[in-house]
């Protein structure tokens, strides 16, 4: 294909805005349009469940400084919805009737909070969190003594619970799984986190089967949530955090290939979809990963940044940047929890650190005969970062030494590197 003269990016979130800036950084000089449904300049979403809810003043969340898109000749258009993708004429149709032509199009459409049928969006006292408006609305609802029920004990639900507690609300968390973050943590990690949440005053209900949740009193807005085998809960505020539905409407309407396993837009290692002129990045994309030989969709800040850059390179016909080792963080209950790598079957987890300590610094290392594959770190991001080179190169540590906190990790990492060279 010829080098592109015009590029349209649909979606001005983390992936879309990073891609726009990366395109200019990589030398693209053609017409570059960045379409955002929201009225805000592209902003970081991680703070929405944390500082935007709790900090005394709303923090600045912009991804790029004021005026940056203009200075980069990026035609950022706010409050514009793309309603159709016409692949034959290579045009994006907008809600205001305009059509914008492209040589390459990037779908960075992200997703929406998954809705529970009994608790539709827009119901009084019911909250979902995806946008800055959602966060502001929730912030004003979180006042001391309010009874808050969080449905969903995943990363987002726990962050929201932590923030609601910080605003002195009473908080109950309902989770259907028998333990917290079951897919991401060894059982000991889940137990540690549950203890931490309870210590913070969270009422934690695991293995919950929700029967129904509906407003019982329209004048007070009090919601009653009924469960199997347990008395109903009453709530002044219900926050639903049961996952993200990738926004693939344009892609489906245009007949692009969708990954049946995760609902994402299927793309190759260049972020290219089944149409070579259309790319996808971020929460809505299911990308082929060379490391595993399979497709995966990741909802993370790091992934949105990486795929934004990857798609920029792909649209310009440049080789993809090296894939980073998957990394994720969450801040909750005054702890910074980081995950490096992905869980896999057959891992042995070795713990470094004392989980009973008040200021716990912990790493659960998931390994195969010492070769690190997956790790969860609690307040030990610097230590985890030191180990990244071992993850990337597949170099083994001695698990017994790893578990011994009297042996500094730095020396262990260096020794592992020296054994390999």
């Amino acid at each position, binding site marked *: 294909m010829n080098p592109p003269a015009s590029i349209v990016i649909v979606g001005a979130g983390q992936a879309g805005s990073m891609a726009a800036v990366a395109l200019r950084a990589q030398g693209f000089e053609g017409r570059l349009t960045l379409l955002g449904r929201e009225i805000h300049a592209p902003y*970081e979403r*991680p703070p929405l469940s944390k*500082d935007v809810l709790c900090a005394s003043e709303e923090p600045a969340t*912009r*991804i790029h*400084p004021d005026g940056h898109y203009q200075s980069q000749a990026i035609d950022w258009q706010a409050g514009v919805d793309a309603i159709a993708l016409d692949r034959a004429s290579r045009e994006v149709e907008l809600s205001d009737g305009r059509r914008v032509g492209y040589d390459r199009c990037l779908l960075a459409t992200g997703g929406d909070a998954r809705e529970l049928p009994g608790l539709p969006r827009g119901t009084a006292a019911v909250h979902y969190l995806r946008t800055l408006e959602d966060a502001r609305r929730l912030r004003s609802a979180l006042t001391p003594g309010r009874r808050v029920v969080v449905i969903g004990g995943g990363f987002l639900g726990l962050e929201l619970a932590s923030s609601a507690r910080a605003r002195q609300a009473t908080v109950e968390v309902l989770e259907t799984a028998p333990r917290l973050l079951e897919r991401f943590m060894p059982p000991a990690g889940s137990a540690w986190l549950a203890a931490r949440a309870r210590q913070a005053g969270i009422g934690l209900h695991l293995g919950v089967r929700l029967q129904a949740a509906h407003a019982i009193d329209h004048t007070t807005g009090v919601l009653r949530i009924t469960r199997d085998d347990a008395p109903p809960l009453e709530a002044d505020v219900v926050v639903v955090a049961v996952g993200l539905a990738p926004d693939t409407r344009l892609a489906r309407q245009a007949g692009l290939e969708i990954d049946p396993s995760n609902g994402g837009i299927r793309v190759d290692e260049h972020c290219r979809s089944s149409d070579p002129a259309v790319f996808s990045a971020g929460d809505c994309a299911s990308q082929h990963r060379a490391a595993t030989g399979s497709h995966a969709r990741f909802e993370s*800040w790091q992934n949105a*940044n990486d795929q934004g850059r990857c798609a920029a390179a792909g649209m310009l016909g440049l080789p993809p940047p090296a894939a980073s080792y998957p*990394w994720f*963080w969450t*801040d909750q209950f005054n702890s*910074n929890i980081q995950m490096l790598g992905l869980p896999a079957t057959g891992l042995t987890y070795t713990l470094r650190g004392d989980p009973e300590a008040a200021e716990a610094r912990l790493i659960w290392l998931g390994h195969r005969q010492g070769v690190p594959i997956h790790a969860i770190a609690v307040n*030990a*991001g*610097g230590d985890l*970062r*030191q180990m990244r080179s071992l993850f990337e190169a597949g170099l083994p540590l001695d698990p017994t030494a790893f578990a011994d906190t009297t042996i500094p990790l*730095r020396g262990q990492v260096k020794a592992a590197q020296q054994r390999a060279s």
Partner: protein
Amino acid sequence: MNWTRIASTAELQDDEPLPIVVGERRIALYRYNGEIYATDNVCTHAYSLLSDGFLEDGCIECPLHQARFDIRTGKVLCAPATQDIRTYPVRVDGDDILLAI
């Protein structure tokens, strides 16, 4: 300039940032390629001590969210931080490390 003794050279190892409190300021000291550098210790993005972070190639990476700063210039190198970090002049006098605030 007002030079204050803040550490001895023996306390500072390569690759291992040293946290120092000077009055109400938190400072991180670094030794890199035989040179000593000082920056503010609190990340410009979120409350976190850079001295708990990862020092590599003259850059300090925040332990919380992996923002990176050049310890020589204080320049922010990657998101999520967007603001540079303050640096301070440092000099060595015998075994003493002196900092100008």
